[in-house]
């Protein structure tokens, strides 16, 4: 039955080569921790992606309960964490995952750096990877404000002050980030939109480019 459906689609779209290409490509020995234990350093990229998937999923589920509004944001977070079954765990996944993804990405970056894997012909993939890093930091910064508790509020104020000290355009950056003259209602909706739509969109595009390039260029050879 399943095979029938598959064949029906394959006949029309010729999908076999697409997944065959991913499935059958050979992975060299030097990144395989079963052969050399030290090859575990090559796992960090995959783990970063895994945690990113968790982040995207848990974030999607959290928005079922969250309201980006200064009156209700805190109440809704409080409600989903303490009153909804598994709310503490789902919010915990998103909260701790945010830190873990940074840690994993940091380790992944260090691995790529110290194995010199960013060298020709993989320069572009390094640049894309760094952009992903910056986007992740942006996601961390914008996400921090959303629960609208004191910690979120004052951390964001500090962050915006730092941005403000940029010469000439600092004031404009500040107002653009705040969406107004103070950190308040308009800041929260703005950060929410950036956190939930803009940055994840950019992240997905960059991730696609990252993986496409890995697939095209292969893993860098052994040292």
């Amino acid at each position: 039955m399943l095979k029938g459906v598959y064949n029906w689609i394959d006949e029309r779209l010729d999908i076999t080569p697409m997944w065959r290409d991913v499935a059958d490509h050979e992975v060299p020995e030097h990144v395989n921790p079963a052969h050399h234990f030290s090859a575990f350093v090559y796992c960090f990229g995959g783990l970063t992606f895994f945690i990113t998937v968790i982040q995207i999923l848990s974030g999607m589920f959290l928005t079922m309960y969250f309201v980006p509004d200064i009156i209700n944001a805190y109440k809704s977070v409080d409600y989903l964490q303490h009153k909804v079954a598994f709310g503490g765990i789902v919010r915990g996944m998103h909260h701790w995952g945010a830190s873990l993804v940074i840690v994993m990405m940091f380790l992944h970056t260090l691995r790529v750096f110290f194995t010199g894997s960013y060298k020709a012909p993989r320069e572009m993939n390094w640049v894309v990877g760094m952009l992903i890093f910056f986007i992740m930091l942006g996601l961390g910064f914008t996400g921090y404000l959303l629960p609208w508790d004191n910690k979120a509020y004052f951390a964001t104020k500090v962050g915006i002050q730092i941005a403000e000290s940029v010469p000439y355009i600092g004031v404009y950056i500040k107002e653009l980030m705040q969406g107004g003259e103070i950190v308040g209602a308009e800041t929260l909706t703005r950060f929410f939109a950036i956190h939930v739509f803009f940055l994840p969109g950019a992240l997905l595009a960059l991730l696609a480019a990252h993986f496409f390039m890995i697939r095209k260029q292969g893993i860098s050879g052994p040292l």
Partner: protein
Amino acid sequence: MSNHEHHENTAHKPVKRSGMSRRQFLSYTLGGAGAFMAAGMSLPMIRFAVDPILKKKAGGTWIKVVEENKITNDPQEFKFNIHQVDGWYVSDPELSAWISKDSSGNFFALSPVCKHLGCTISWNTEKNNEYVCPCHNAHYTKDGKNLTVAPKPLDEYELKIDKGWVYLGPIKANTRV
């Protein structure tokens, strides 16, 4: 497929082990590990999302509405507030009920929400002792029986009398017609 894989297969062929091949075993383990990861991360989230249907519904509370002796055979509208906790939003919305006595002296309370398209009905606006809905001219008898347009009779509130006061509970389907 690589030469290496091919070589392995031919090398194993003479052994002719019963059961599954190495590749099959790996595939199953892979599927298992994948399923475990998928379940491990998505089960808490799914439980989180479906919480509303698994939540214990708070039993209906009784709200004191009006003194018993104010109820007549003609339906009258009474307003009352219920305490409503809607997630993080707590409110006390005002509801209304049409309360009356039937010929044998039993009290009953009808919901004013028209079963046609949800407008608000009222009593005797056309002087014919019927509930009338202003939107599409639905008519109901005093017991809430649907006469025109509406597909169902009016809903009824649970009702009890205690120490001379009428108490209303949750809404239920009409039991009188």
